[in-house]
């Protein structure tokens, strides 16, 4: 009886004394509750590149007829026939979750002490939001990825969808900061003193703030041209302002280009989609792009853009219902997109000198902004060729052999056509930019694929479909969603 009493007492004492620490085991040993900005930055850079080059970019590549599908039952087959939907993961994980949310966390952590990080995060935020709104139209921006309020709850649990015009140009009544001003804030932050600065965690520029400044000003050029159909004064003023002495990405040799690097160990998504992933071989060179390159005598660049396993380049018709050419003869993405060993070690090129030159050429032609359109045009072609790995000798030879192609001539409309056709060719691997150019100018002319379906089989998709997951939990998403044939605000 005594032993029983003592045993019982002992148990009681043990129980009450270790209750507190016994119950405090609810912290997952495999994860952390806080991380330094230098671990978030690499993720945001790669996530931004992944968003541009994964499904969103693949759909654009087929819409813009760089590629044609070689497997009509695949997702590539759907995109090739104008069925542009199914982007739930792109919206949730690539744009808002992986990129914008983490950028916002960086900004909140570093704005006060280390504005260098906050500044480059704002530039990335502006680029990513512009990608989202260019593709989807009205999207959450001012209330998106906004973090927590003082009580630790999500600040905006159901973000409103901001109008595209407000996103680009701002809206003071609604408290929406224009993308231009976001970039300017970021540029100002970069030049402030900063306790911590990015170094090796900055996968693109290695912490060189001068290059980030050039990236920021290049974004101003890009956004300014984007709104040119609806706000031409903004276009003129912003571009002239940048050209009046602000540094931007202009090195023809590509040393200043914003490129997110990948390696064979961590390959880019072009490689995984076409070769290394679990559903390869669903797209190949489009016979239409092939015909264009031939008309431009551009075999040197084409052989970098696409492979030539057979004696000649082999392309397929977009939307063709017939069997594609045999796998071993198909021309698919080459060393420019997949890297020298075709293992995915090529970078994702987001903002480049060649595109900036074409932007300035178009602006000079349409709005008379500073500079000579022909000079920009030729610099654009040269920069694209250098970026594709051609030597200076090759470039000079091409220019000497094709004076009609490399010189603007004819009516202003014809000159604009020349500029945008070369920009289209140069943008292999970043089809989202071409998709924007096409919707803004109508160039190049894209005949309908042989088979079309989707929301409106008779009209080219002018936007991507909103994701279903956002709509089911956010009543602010327009329901019914706009059809893919509805143009976005800045389109022609």
């Amino acid at each position: 009886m005594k032993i029983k009493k003592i045993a019982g007492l002992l148990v009681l004492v043990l129980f009450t004394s270790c209750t507190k620490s016994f119950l405090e085991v609810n912290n997952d040993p495999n994860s952390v509750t806080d991380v330094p900005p230098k671990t978030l930055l690499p993720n945001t850079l790669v996530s931004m590149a992944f968003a541009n080059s994964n499904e969103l970019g693949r759909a654009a590549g087929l819409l813009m007829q760089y590629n044609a599908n070689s497997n009509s039952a695949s997702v590539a087959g759907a995109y090739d026939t104008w069925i542009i939907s199914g982007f739930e993961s792109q919206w949730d994980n690539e744009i808002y979750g992986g990129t914008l949310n983490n950028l916002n966390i960086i900004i909140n952590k570093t704005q006060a002490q280390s504005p260098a990080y906050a500044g480059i995060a704002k530039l990335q935020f502006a680029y990513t939001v512009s990608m989202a709104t260019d593709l989807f139209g009205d999207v959450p921006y001012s209330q998106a990825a906004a973090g927590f309020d003082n009580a630790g709850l999500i600040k905006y649990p159901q973000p409103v969808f901001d109008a595209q015009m407000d996103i680009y140009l701002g809206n003071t009544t609604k408290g929406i900061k224009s993308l231009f001003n976001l970039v300017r804030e970021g540029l100002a932050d970069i030049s402030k003193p900063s306790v911590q600065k990015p170094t090796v965690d900055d996968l693109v520029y290695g912490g060189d703030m001068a290059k980030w400044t050039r990236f920021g000003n290049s974004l101003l050029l890009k956004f300014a041209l984007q709104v040119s159909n609806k706000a031409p004064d903004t276009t003129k003023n912003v571009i002239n302002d940048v050209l009046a002495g602000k540094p931007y990405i202009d090195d023809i040799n590509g040393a200043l280009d914003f490129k997110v690097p990948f390696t064979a160990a961590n390959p880019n998504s072009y490689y995984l989609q076409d070769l290394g992933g679990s559903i390869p071989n669903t797209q190949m060179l489009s016979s239409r792009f092939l015909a264009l390159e031939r008309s431009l005598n551009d075999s040197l660049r084409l052989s970098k853009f696409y492979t030539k396993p057979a004696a000649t380049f082999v392309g397929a018709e977009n939307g063709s219902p017939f069997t594609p050419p045999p796998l071993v003869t198909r021309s698919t993405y080459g060393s420019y997109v997949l890297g020298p060993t075709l293992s995915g070690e090529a970078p994702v090129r987001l903002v480049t000198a060649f595109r900036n030159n074409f932007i300035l050429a178009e602006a000079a032609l349409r709005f008379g902004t500073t500079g000579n359109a022909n000079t920009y045009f030729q610099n654009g072609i040269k920069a694209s060729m250098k970026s594709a790995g051609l030597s200076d000798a090759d470039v000079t030879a091409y220019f000497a052999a094709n004076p009609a192609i490399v010189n603007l001539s004819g009516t202003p409309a014809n000159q604009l056509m020349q500029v945008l056709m070369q920009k289209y060719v140069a943008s292999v691997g970043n089809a989202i930019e071409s998709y924007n150019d096409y919707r803004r100018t109508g160039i190049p002319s894209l005949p309908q694929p042989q088979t079309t379906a989707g929301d409106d089989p008779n009209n080219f998709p002018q936007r991507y479909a909103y994701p279903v997951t956002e709509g089911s939990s956010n009543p602010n998403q327009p329901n019914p969603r706009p059809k893919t044939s509805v143009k976005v605000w800045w389109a022609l």
Partner: protein
Amino acid sequence: MEFTGRQDHSSTLPASKNAYFYPSVSAAFVLSDALKINSDLLSFAKLRASYAKVGEDAPPYALNNIYLSASDGNNVAAYAFPFGSTAGFGAASRLGNKELRPEFTNTLDFGVNLGLFKNKINIDATYYSSKSTDQIVSVAVPGSTGYQSKYANVGELTNKGFEITVTATPVRTKNFSWNISGNFSRNRNKVTYIAPGVTSFAYAGTSFSGLVPTVAVGEPFGIIRGAKWVTNAAGQRLVDSTTGQYANFLLDQTVINPNRDWIAGLTNTFTFKHFSFSFLVDYKKGGQFESFTVGVLRANGSLKVTEDRDQPHILPGVIDVGGGKYRPNNIQISGQSYYATALGSTTGTSASNEFAVFDATTFRVREFSVSYDLPGSLVNTKIFKNIKFTIYGRNLFFYAPNSLIDPELSTQGAATTTTGGLVRGLELISAPSTRNVGASIRVGF
């Protein structure tokens, strides 16, 4: 009468709310004894009642916001840190919730057992009503917030229903007996409340191809929402006058309610000397499911119903002529457009889900068996006690009048805490059900 009480402490709940207590009480009353009823007609009667409360805690690690080594993508294309020696982290897509409370279910039930005709007929009936509150569920959060889900205590769910089982032995003689047993059950569940200002939410991580399992106030638990073609006020679908196709579709409409109206089953067993013969049939009424098999095969033209593909078709619906008036649709479209676009391809993002949803009412002969029990005298009783031979058949026959496919195929797997429960009502191109026929010998030593 019986009472129980239980106190739980859990480490998975916040420290200030991690202790909870739940009691229960039950009672039974044998009416036939108490009233000293002694009749052949009512040979036994018992009343029962009980009330029970049950509590449950949260899954582990649900309280904090965490960061994970960054990765994204799927089997087609993906990336994962570290890149060489560069570490990359990102916020996890699930929000922590430091306000979690334990969840509780209160159940009240009443039952009566009756024995009639000297217990030749037994009736067992139960009525129950249960209410579950503060269910801990992974709720979907809009992706534009930067996160995708959050554990939350969610509202109130009621389950009410009754079950009756009747067993009887109408004939019992020395060599022959017939035993019959039937049951009937009906359950109604309803979500009565979620959270202030919230009328519906989607279960995180369970959406598939445009179909989103959703919990909505005023609707039963287990519904799935998807797309439906836009209709006018009278419920007629609107047709686009330029293409002859349905005009547009709305997302977030309830398309599938998998809950049955009622279920009934019947077993008959006949025993003659050493033979016995039994069969079990059941009838499940109501419920809906979406069949991807039918949707895809019909859009491909593999189903017999698409034989008329060379004929022009007209979609049933109306065209808006303005001023609130409508005229019947008379625009012809091809068989291809009719089957592969209008009736949908089973993806909710470009077309409606409605036309692949079927009523799951089924009558089924579930089991049928004949067995022979070897009489003891034929068996060496020192070694064998008994030997029984059986021939049986299972799932022999079903009849589902409103469906093109067996409704009892479901491929969404078992319940886990994160998926919030079995997702019922989706047939995702599953293998057909099997009819089994077999024989067995059972030997007792």
